[in-house]
């Protein structure tokens, strides 16, 4: 699993879903969790922590959001010279086959479909951690 000091960004326009994800992460002992309400604010925070030389090591983002969507954020992250390989988990309520294909093509590390219990999120994180060998 990710280390407890892994810096994580949780992006969702719904406060409740951010709280659900954050509660699951804090339950795992994670302490460095930041939040953003949409892809635009997320990008600002990504750039902000890059200036501090302490970038996010994991991004968990909703797909459907105003301004900049989760998919658009993913594409922007993947195109960045420093952030390009950071694990990126997409959360979606409307996972259709075409959407999934689009996310995979854009380089998503994993996705989880709402509704989901906390255990499913933990399993997804474990799978991503294994994939990125971040134990």
């Amino acid at each position: 699993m990710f280390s407890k000091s892994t810096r994580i960004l949780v992006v969702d326009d719904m406060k409740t879903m951010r709280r659900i994800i954050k509660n699951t992460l804090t339950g795992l002992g994670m302490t460095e969790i930041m939040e953003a309400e949409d892809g635009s604010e997320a990008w600002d925070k990504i750039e902000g922590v890059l200036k501090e030389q302490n970038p996010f090591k994991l991004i968990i983002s909703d797909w459907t959001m105003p301004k900049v969507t989760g998919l658009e954020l993913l594409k922007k992250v993947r195109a960045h010279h420093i952030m390009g390989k950071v694990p990126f988990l997409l959360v979606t309520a409307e996972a259709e086959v075409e959407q999934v294909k689009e996310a995979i093509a854009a380089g998503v590390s994993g996705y989880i479909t709402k509704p989901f219990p906390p255990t499913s999120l933990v399993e997804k994180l474990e799978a991503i951690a294994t994939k990125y060998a971040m134990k």
Partner: protein
Amino acid sequence: MTVPNIDEKFISTFADATKETLAVQCAYKVKYGKPFLRGKGKAIVPAIIGVIGISSPSFSGSISVAFTEKIFLELMGNMLGEPFAEITEELEDGVGELINIIFGVVKKTLSQIGYQFHRAIPSVIRGNNISVHSVSTKPVIIIPFFSETSPDTFQIEIVFE
């Protein structure tokens, strides 16, 4: 009042999606009863309602999920893993997220058989003794839901435009 032509598949998918969402996201098991027209059955007096507008070839109108305070606090407590004594401003967001998730399940299910939807951003109505559609002259179909473990109930309200 003219009773609209009801797409039964659409209504049962919404009811099933609600059941699934609450079971998975809130660890709360429910069953639903036979839908009835407003005024023709026993409806609850909700404390909080999440409303979403939908347009599609098979249905145009709004769908609401209406909860009493007691059942809503229990759902939020299960979903967020902590107890709540009252509906705060922060908790109001939770009913919007629930209807978002329910709609996502419906869309995924029905898109597989050719349905297409457009929807609006959910809105939340809160207060004592409220009903979104109490002054509406349009037909309202109510689907009653029952907790599997307590006498608590809530309902979905479907309004045809």
